[in-house]
Each structure stands twice: as structure tokens, then as C-alpha cells.
């Protein structure tokens, strides 16, 4: 898939070989690894917080109709506010450390999970839910044993979406604010006319994305063996 990038070749879109060379160069650079580390930390931390908060809020709000109705308008109001527009606020609160990146990552990734969970909770099979009710499952047990498994496929989609949005935002924030990380390296490369290096770094972000998805898919196959979508692929 890399050659595809090389299809249109110009000084601005250097051929794969030069990108690869630049990539090799970068891997020898401790600064690169430090930046990669910074980005990954911001990403993982932000994602963890966002997923935790998103799932919690999604289940609580999704399963209580009054809350759902009450918050719907506010959610729709807050959601499209671009994280980018929050940059001044983030800088104000956290300066250019990891804190601002984290805040932006959390904000953007949260909605991805939250909305998916809302839809997942709405998808509970009424008969299954009534079965649980008739056996007088406690509220917690209903969530744990009925709501959660039903919502799980949605959660997975949400997490996969959030994972890449988090990565996108981590890098964008670094790019725009200049917090340490891959994004900053890209910005510096861009400003320095180091075109192959820039693409090498972009490729790195892409590869990160692929790895992250791989991880999510593996988890999904483990946890969703019972689900229709996985079932069909496992059984005869």
C-alpha cells in the first residue's frame, strides 16, 4: 500500500524509497522514539479516560429515559464543537504540556464511545430484557448481564472509532499547540522543507492506526464469539 503513495511523484510526494530512507533515519533518532512515546502516552491515557467515561455515561444515560431526554439537546450542542476550537481553552488550562493534548483527546474520543453506547443500549432485545426482569435481576445485574453484552459490539465499534480519533487528535494537538510528540515532529519537518521525513512520520501514524485496529479486532474476536457478526465467521 505504500507504493500507492508513490504513484503521484513530485518533490512534494516523494517516492516510497525516499520515505523509507527517511523512516530508517528517524528510527535511529532518539528524539523520534521519545516523541513516539509521548504521543502514545497521551493517546493511551486519553483513550482510557474517554472510554471509561463514555461507557459509564452511555449506560447510565442510555438506560434512564428521563436522563436521556434531558441531556439529548445538550449533547447535540456540545458534540460538534470542534476540539480544535477548544485549543485556546486547553492551552489556557494546561499550557503546552501533555495536559492539553490529553484534554483534547478525551473530549473528542469521549463522544465516539458515548454515542455508540447509547445506540447499543437502545438495541437490547426486549424479550431478553424482560427475561432478566422477570427473574428479578437487580439493576446492576441487568446492566452486567443483558445491557452490557448487547452493547458490547457497539462499544467495540466505538472504541475502534475513538482509538483513531484519539490518535488523530493527539497528533493534531501536538501539531497545532506544539506539545511534545509525533505531531510536533511533523510540524517541524513540514516547516523545515524535510518532505520525506514528514511523510515518514505520517506513515508512522498510519501504521500505528493499523496496529491499534489489529488489537481491537483481536479483542473483539475473543469477547464476541457469540455474536452474529463473529459467529458466522467461526462456524461452518
Amino acid at each position, binding site marked *: 500500500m505504500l507504493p500507492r503513495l508513490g504513484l503521484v511523484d*513530485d*518533490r*512534494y510526494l516523494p517516492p516510497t524509497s525516499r520515505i523509507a530512507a527517511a523512516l530508517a533515519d528517524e528510527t535511529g533518532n532518539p528524539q523520534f522514539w521519545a516523541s513516539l512515546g509521548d504521543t502514545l502516552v497521551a493517546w493511551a491515557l486519553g483513550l482510557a479516560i474517554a472510554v471509561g467515561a463514555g461507557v459509564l455515561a452511555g449506560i447510565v444515560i442510555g438506560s434512564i429515559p428521563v436522563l436521556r431526554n434531558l441531556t439529548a439537546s445538550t449533547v447535540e450542542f456540545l458534540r460538534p464543537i470542534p476540539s480544535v476550537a477548544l*485549543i*485556546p481553552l486547553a*492551552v*489556557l488550562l*494546561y*499550557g*503546552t*504540556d501533555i495536559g492539553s493534548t490529553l484534554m483534547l483527546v478525551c473530549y473528542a474520543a469521549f463522544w465516539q464511545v458515548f454515542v455508540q453506547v447509547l445506540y447499543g443500549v437502545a438495541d437490547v432485545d426486549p424479550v431478553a430484557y424482560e427475561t432478566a426482569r422477570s427473574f428479578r435481576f437487580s439493576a446492576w445485574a441487568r446492566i452486567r448481564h443483558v445491557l452490557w453484552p448487547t452493547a458490547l459490539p457497539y462499544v467495540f465499534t466505538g472504541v475502534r472509532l475513538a482509538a483513531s480519533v484519539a490518535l488523530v487528535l493527539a497528533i493534531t494537538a501536538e*501539531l*497545532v*499547540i*506544539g506539545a511534545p510528540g509525533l505531531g*510536533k*515532529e511533523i*510540524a*517541524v*519537518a*513540514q*516547516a*523545515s*522543507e*524535510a*518532505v520525506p*521525513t*514528514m511523510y515518514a512520520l505520517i506513515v508512522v501514524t498510519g501504521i500505528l492506526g493499523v496496529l491499534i485496529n489489529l488489537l481491537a479486532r483481536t479483542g473483539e474476536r475473543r469477547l464476541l464469539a457469540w455474536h452474529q457478526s463473529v459467529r458466522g465467521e467461526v462456524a461452518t
Partner: protein
Amino acid sequence: GTSSDSGSSGDSGGVDKVKVGVIPIIDVAPIYLGQQKGFFKNRNIELTMESGQGGAAIVPGVVSGQFQFGFSNFTSLMIAQTKNVPIKTVAAGVASTGEQGKDFGAVVVTKDSPIKTAADLVGKKVSVNTLKNIGDTVTRESVRKAGGDGANVNFVEMPFPNMQAALEKGDVDAAWVVEPQLSTIKAAGGREVASTFVDAADDLTVAAYFTSTKLLADDADLVKRFTEAVNESLAYADANPEEVRTVLSTYTKIDAALGAKLVLPKWPTQINEPSVQTLAKLGEGDGIFSGTPDLEKLLP
């Protein structure tokens, strides 16, 4: 703490930790060089550079106390000033070389472009990195000086690195660029039609280091030491261009070949007040400011 929770003061062993918000471009080479040379350490300042994209990102950092100092072009600083953002410059940042055709910022066109002089830019599309900022002001002035109608130029915003491609594809008719893109474009056959900083004012001071008025009030001594250190760095950089070219590779990714060809700016230690006044007037004329910048308040 005097100014913030994360940064300065805390006289731990008499050393002040100072964060400076900079844009990782050639203009700030002196401060990196000065750091290397120990000009700051000598004055009990432990320096960390934080990069930000342009004044809009750095000014808030300085105002909120995340950075103690920042680097920004004068137009941005004056815009902030007209909005009563509490900041004050503390040292000169970078200045034009003052030589036609040999400055670090210019308007360029492709080799075979019909545009010969700045006057031909009238009615044309010119790219700048930021709209309503220093780029358009100085370009308009170049057009005016060449006898054209400065108000009648169409500016388009795009990042510097994209300008060469846009120019060659014909998306824009001309591009206002600074180094290192300027050298790259020229090397590819691009032609310079106006040295805009030179046209705008004699020895224009383009940018400056600044701080918040709060820090100035709280810790005047630190500001004083910082100013001294910066001035020493500026002077050193101005005198040792080769060392400047070397230090570039430590904080940018400019490769050595390109680094050797770059036109370096001037780094005087004094802010050229008349040139800033001219810049202010030009900006006001072009409607960039909402009021008249109060240079008294802004300049040290």
C-alpha cells in the same frame, strides 16, 4: 509562585526555570544558540523551549503564565495590544536584512510568470501563511511602492510548505514566503518580485520576545536577566552566521545542504521603533487592527 504553578520562580538554588514559547523556525536560532553557549545559565536561568504554531497559540500561553516569555511577530503583538491583552515586549526578535533581493522573506512567482514587479500583483491571487497579518500588510506596501493599488490584491491563506506546489499548479499567482521555503522555491527556478520587509520600512524589526505585564510587575529582575541574555544571544548570532546554520539542525529538520544556502535574517539587539510605527500605520491602514496600537504600552 509569582507567575504560575508549573513554571518559573521557586528560587531553587537561585535558578529560575523559564519556559519560552517559540515557533521552531530560523528566526529563533539565537535563543537556541544562546542556550548552548550558556548565556542564560550565566544569569541563573534554566531555559526550556516550547514550540507553538504562531502567535495565536503562544500569546495565550504567556498570558496564562504557562510560558514566561514568548516569541511573536509584531503585527500579532499589536493586534493583541489593541485588544488590551496584557503583554509587553522585552527584547528584539528578528529583523529584515534591509537589502533588496537578499532578505529572508519575499513575494515570489514562477519563472515564466507574467508578473514582473510588485505592481503586477494587483488583482492577482497571493498566498500568505496567515491572513490579516504581517504578510498581507507588507505585500500591500510593496505593491503601493511599486505604484499599484495595494488594496486590490487577493490573499489566500495556506501553510508555507504548500506554497511551492500551489504556485507551480497555478492555484495562486504569487506567494509570500520566508526561509527556508524562499530558498527552495528560488532554487527551483522561482523568481522574487518584491522584498517585502525591505519595502515596508528601513531595517524593519519583524518580531520580538515578549512577556506578560503580570510577570513584569512580579519579577522584574527575571525579565531583566532574560532580556540581557537574549540580547547577548542576538549579538552572538549576528556575528557568527556559521554557528547559526549549525544550530538549526538541532531543533528543525532542515538538511545541511539547504541550511548552507539560506539567507539569514539580521538579529539586532534594539527594536527599531520607527519601523514598528510604520508597520502599525500600515496595518491600521489595511484595517487589520480594531483600534490604534498603543506602542507606548507594548514596547519596553
